[in-house]
C-alpha cells in the first residue's frame, strides 16, 4: 500500500510535469492503480522511491502524447499553493528546457528524491543525474533572474 506521502509525491509530480490539472489527476489515478496491481513494493525506501520514479516516468511518457498544446493552468481546488508563489518562471522553464533535465529537476528539487533513487529509477549513472540537475537549475536560474521573487 502507498503512504500518504508517496501519494502526494505522485500527485505533485504530475502537477509540475503537465501543468494541467485534469491531465495530472488522470495520470495520478493511473499510477496509483498500477502501483496497486504491482503489489510488490519493497519495504526499502530507496527501492520504493526508485519504483515510483520509474512508474511515473513511464506514465508521463505515455500521457504527454495526448496532451494538448498549451498549458491550461492549475487551480487551488486540489492544491495548496505556497503563499506569494510565482509560477511564471516554472512555466517558462518547462518550455525552454530539455525534458530530461526538466524531469530530473522535479524529482530532485521539487520532490526531494535522492540522487541514488533517481539514478536507480531512471537507470542512469549518478553523475548523469547530477549533470542534468545542474544544467536544469542553471537554466531555471537564468529564467528566473538574479532575484528570487517567491
Amino acid at each position, binding site marked *: 500500500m502507498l503512504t500518504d506521502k508517496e*501519494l502526494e509525491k505522485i*500527485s505533485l509530480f504530475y*502537477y509540475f510535469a503537465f501543468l494541467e490539472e485534469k491531465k495530472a489527476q488522470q495520470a495520478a489515478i493511473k499510477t496509483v492503480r498500477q502501483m*496497486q496491481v504491482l503489489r510488490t513494493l519493497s519495504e526499502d525506501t530507496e527501492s520504493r522511491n526508485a519504483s515510483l520514479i520509474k512508474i511515473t516516468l513511464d506514465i508521463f511518457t505515455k500521457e504527454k502524447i495526448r496532451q494538448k498544446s498549451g498549458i491550461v493552468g492549475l487551480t487551488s481546488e*486540489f492544491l495548496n499553493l505556497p503563499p506569494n508563489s510565482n509560477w511564471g518562471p516554472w512555466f517558462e522553464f518547462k518550455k525552454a528546457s530539455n525534458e530530461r533535465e526538466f524531469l530530473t529537476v522535479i524529482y530532485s*528539487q*521539487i520532490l526531494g528524491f535522492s540522487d541514488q533513487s533517481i539514478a536507480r529509477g531512471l537507470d542512469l549513472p549518478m553523475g548523469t543525474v547530477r549533470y542534468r540537475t545542474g544544467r536544469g537549475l542553471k537554466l531555471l536560474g537564468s529564467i528566473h533572474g538574479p532575484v*528570487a521573487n517567491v
Partner: protein
Amino acid sequence: MSDATSEHERLPRRPRIISRFICQELLFDYYCDRLDEERKSAVQTYIKSHPEIQDEIEQIKTATDYCQKLSLTRVTPNYLSQLKEAKTLPQKVRQNLNWRKWPESLRWTFEALTVSVLIAVIAIATPWQKLEVLQILQQKSYEIFVSKNKTDPAEKIDLPKVVDAKVETNEVAIETVKEEEKNKIIDSSQKTLVVAADKPEAVKLVKPSKPVEVALVKKPMGRLYRFMMAAKNSESVSTKTIEKIRQLGGAKAGQVDLGWKKKNPDGYYFHFEMPKANYNELVKTLGGYGPVRIYDNPHERVMPEGQIRIILWIEEKAPEVRQNIKVESAIENSTPQPKGDSESDANTENSETLTPSSISDEATKEAPAE
C-alpha cells in the same frame, strides 16, 4: 624504516588547474559541497580569476531557492482520498458485479432473466429429434410372440434380419416378403408369426409336425380378355356395341376411344374395362351379332377387384360363299372338325380356333403400352 616510509609518502602535488568547461561542469557539485578538497580549491581558484563564473553560481542558488519554495506545495486531503479510492478496472467490475448489494427489484429481475435464459438455452440445445426418433423406434419395434407347443419342445431357430415380414398360417398368399425370405423355409404354426426387426437371434419357434414350404412368391398377375368377331355391317354393330358397353358400365381402358376405326386391317377396335358381373351379358349381346372368339390370357396389368379388361375387335364379315365352300369341303372330308370357330364361350380360358395373327398382334401392341 622511517626513511623508507617517508620516501613513499605522497609528494606535494601542484595545485590542479582546471579549464572553464571543467569548472562550469563542477559548479553544481561545488555549490552542493560534494567536491573533494583538490577540486574544490581548483574551482575556487578559477572563480577568483574569473568573476563571471560567480554569476552562474548565483543562478544555481536562485533556482535552488525557487524550487525549495515550490516544493512547499501540498495536495488537499480531498484529493488524496480520491486517489486512495482509485480502483483498477477488475476491482470496479468486481464491485459492480456484487449483486447482493443491488436493489431488490433489480436483483429479482436479474434472477428471473437468468432463469429464463437458462431454460431457453436448454430447450434449444437439447436434441429433441433424437429423443423422438428413439421413441418411434421403440414403437415400431416388433415383439416376438412365442407360443410353446406343449407336445413338442421349443427349438431355437435363427431367423434372418427381417423387416415387415409376415407369415400367415397355411394360407396361400403371402402378401409382401423381402427378397431374402423367398427361398427360406419358414415354420408355420396355427398362429400368426411376427418377426422382430432387430432381434433375429432371440427367437423361439415351435416346429409343427408338417412344415409347409413356401416357395417362390409370384407377383400377382391380371387377366386380359380378347374378343374377336366378324359381323355383317360392322359399322352398325360397332355403334351398338359402344352403346352396350357404356350401358353395362364399361369405359375405355386405353388411349383410344371405344370403337376406334382402324385400317389395314380394317376393323373396329375396343379397349375397355367393365364390371365383371356384366361379362356374360356382354358376351350374350355380342354373340347375337355373330360368332365371337374369346381368349383369356394373363397380363401384368392388374385390374381392380370386380373389374375386367377386354380388347374387342370387330371386323367386317367375309362373304358367305367362302364359308359355304369351307363347309362343303369339311363335309366331303367327313372328318370331324372341332367346333369353336363360330361359337362363343364365356369362360374360354384358351383360344379355340386359329387366331388371326395380324389382328391379335396389333391389338397386343396397344395393350402393353396401355
